[in-house]
């Protein structure tokens, strides 16, 4: 008996991809191309040959759906096992979930916005290759939104801070940072959006954003988050590719595109980098079991891989590293400390809790930031220790000044002096505007007519648009309830956690609220 040789595949990957893209595309005959694709000229980008854009993944509908379904099946198997085994009790500490509250409130709604804008690109880009890649990414982003909500909903049954993330994303002061960042991208043209989100966010900064959350989950017993994270990241590598293809395609199509793309890289590196400030403090302060310091993550994922790798490659096209990158590098020693110190004193108005870093945490910070922690930040925590002993707790009794561009409280310091707050002033149409850094000031002054529209939470509160004049009014309008924010020690989460872990009988778990 002979075994029949395996039947050859009808079409190779390349041929199937060709069939899906080129063969399903056509030239309009009774309307102008510019009527079918009205948004790909006003930004000044010149494209001569859309067929030069090819997706290296060569995905087709059958392959896409097959592997995405498999990814979902694997994730939901983990979620079921976790819920069935009371997995939330195996976290290192309930305070770990503050990182996840921030993720659900700050990042998940961005996934949905990304879904919307990639759907728009899937309709409006002229080339069939990028249209299909954008369509896949649009569906991916919807999947990420859904899987993140499903994953974290397991914690919403037991812990505060997870119950009103969508409304909070639109209203709460610290969430206006990621929201306004993405709104800025959504209101740009299709090519700027591709450089803003596809390239700067997905390629330049994605590892800094996601890998710390996922590694933190892995170290702190959060199996479901680690699983959704890796599941989402596996799509992310496709998104990185779309971003890199986009930039190379634009640079290769016409030399006149180079300065336009460079200015977008300069702007969007800084915009994205400012959003990662929230990740920096999460890594260094919020994780009960530390993974790596922000400084180390920044050096590995940004300095080594992006400045040392990617920008060497892009130099071929005349692209240089982003403007103000030297300030980001200088900040790596101070960023997380300044941001956590800020969240610590404003968490009474947040949907997460903060707490005083204990001796072990401080010694880790001191080891990882030998040049700055002991000198600049330990004295502040020592003062707060005395304050706590005297019955105080540092919560600011008022509102901070915000940066007009990144919307973060003006907490950043001069690049060469970590003890002096950086204040930059600009005037536009007779009105004064302040920004937190040279980077944000440069962005403001490049397009002031855009940033004067910023919905700054502090200004909105003072205009009476946020529920009322008092802190309780505003918190009620934020949908922040008892147990969502403030100090972790003595919080509802901490009390429940202690009870669940001390009790011999666990049958009451989850019925407290």
């Amino acid at each position, binding site marked *: 008996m002979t075994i029949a040789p395996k039947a050859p595949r009808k079409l190779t990957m390349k041929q199937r991809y060709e069939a899906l893209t080129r063969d399903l595309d056509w030239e309009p005959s009774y309307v102008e191309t510019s009527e079918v694709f009205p948004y790909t000229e006003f930004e000044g980008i010149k494209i001569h040959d859309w067929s030069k854009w090819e997706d290296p993944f060569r995905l087709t509908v059958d392959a896409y759906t097959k592997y995405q379904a498999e990814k979902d099946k694997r994730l939901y198997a983990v979620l079921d096992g976790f819920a069935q085994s009371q997995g939330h009790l195996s976290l290192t500490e309930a305070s770990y979930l503050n990182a996840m509250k921030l993720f659900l409130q700050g990042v998940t709604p961005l996934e949905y916005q990304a879904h919307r804008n990639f759907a728009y690109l899937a309709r409006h880009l002229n080339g069939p290759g990028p249209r299909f890649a954008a369509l896949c990414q649009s569906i991916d982003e919807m999947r990420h939104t859904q899987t993140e909500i499903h994953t974290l909903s397991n914690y919403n049954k037991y812990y505060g801070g997870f119950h009103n993330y969508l409304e909070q994303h639109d209203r709460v002061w610290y969430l206006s940072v990621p929201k306004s960042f993405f709104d800025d991208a959504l209101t740009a043209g299709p090519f700027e959006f591709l450089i803003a989100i596809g390239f700067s966010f997905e390629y330049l900064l994605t590892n800094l954003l996601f890998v710390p959350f996922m590694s933190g989950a892995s170290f702190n017993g959060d199996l479901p988050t680690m699983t959704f994270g890796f599941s989402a990241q596996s799509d992310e590598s496709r998104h990185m590719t779309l971003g890199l293809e986009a930039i190379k395609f634009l640079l290769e199509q016409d030399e006149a595109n180079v300065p336009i793309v460079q200015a977008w890289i300069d702007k969007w590196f800084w915009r994205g980098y400012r959003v990662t400030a929230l990740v920096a403090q999460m890594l260094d302060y919020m994780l009960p079991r530390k993974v790596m310091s922000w400084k180390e993550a920044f050096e590995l994922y940004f300095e080594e891989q992006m400045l040392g790798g990617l920008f060497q490659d892009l130099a071929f096209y005349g692209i240089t590293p982003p403007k103000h990158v030297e300030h980001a590098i200088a900040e790596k020693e101070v960023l997380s400390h300044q941001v956590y*110190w800020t969240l610590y004193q404003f968490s009474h108005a947040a949907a997460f809790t903060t707490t005083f870093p204990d001796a072990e945490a401080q010694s880790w910070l001191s080891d990882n930031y030998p040049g700055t922690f002991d000198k600049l930040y330990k004295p502040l925590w020592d003062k707060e220790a005395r304050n706590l002993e005297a019955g105080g707790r540092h919560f600011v009794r008022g*509102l901070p000044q915000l940066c007009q561009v990144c919307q973060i409280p003006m907490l950043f310091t001069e690049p060469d002096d970590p003890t002096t707050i950086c*204040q930059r002033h600009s005037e536009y149409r007779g*009105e004064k505007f302040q920004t937190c850094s040279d980077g944000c000031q440069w962005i403001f002054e490049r397009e002031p007519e*855009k940033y004067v529209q910023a919905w700054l939470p502090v200004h909105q509160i003072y205009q009476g648009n946020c529920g009322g004049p008092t802190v309780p009014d505003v918190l009620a309008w934020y949908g922040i309830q008892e147990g969502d924010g403030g100090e972790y020690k003595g919080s509802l989460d901490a009390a429940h956690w202690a009870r669940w872990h001390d009790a011999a009988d666990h049958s009451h778990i989850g019925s407290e609220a």
Partner: protein
Amino acid sequence: MAVNSIGTYDFPSRSRQELYGDDQLVHVWFQENMWFCASACFRAPKAMTWGDFWNGLLVPYAEEDPDFDPGARRVWTLHGEVIEPRDDQTLEEIGVEHKDVIGMRVLA
């Protein structure tokens, strides 16, 4: 350069002074004091006196710092110049405009 857009792009500022009526926003920058992570932002009437601004808004905010000493000698700055506000002067008379930053430094 200006925004590239698909149509007329002309929108008012969302923080313009008229939205606050007779009031304005005033920032106070606690220099050489890292206890407060950022400058404070207050809404205050233009006709508010410096004395009321100090006692009614600034002190309640600043005394959260355990080292706050209301009687300490301070250097005040506005628009890059040292100013010496008197308690009976209004913010307007001192020259404080909407969204200005007043620097405050305690003399050692």
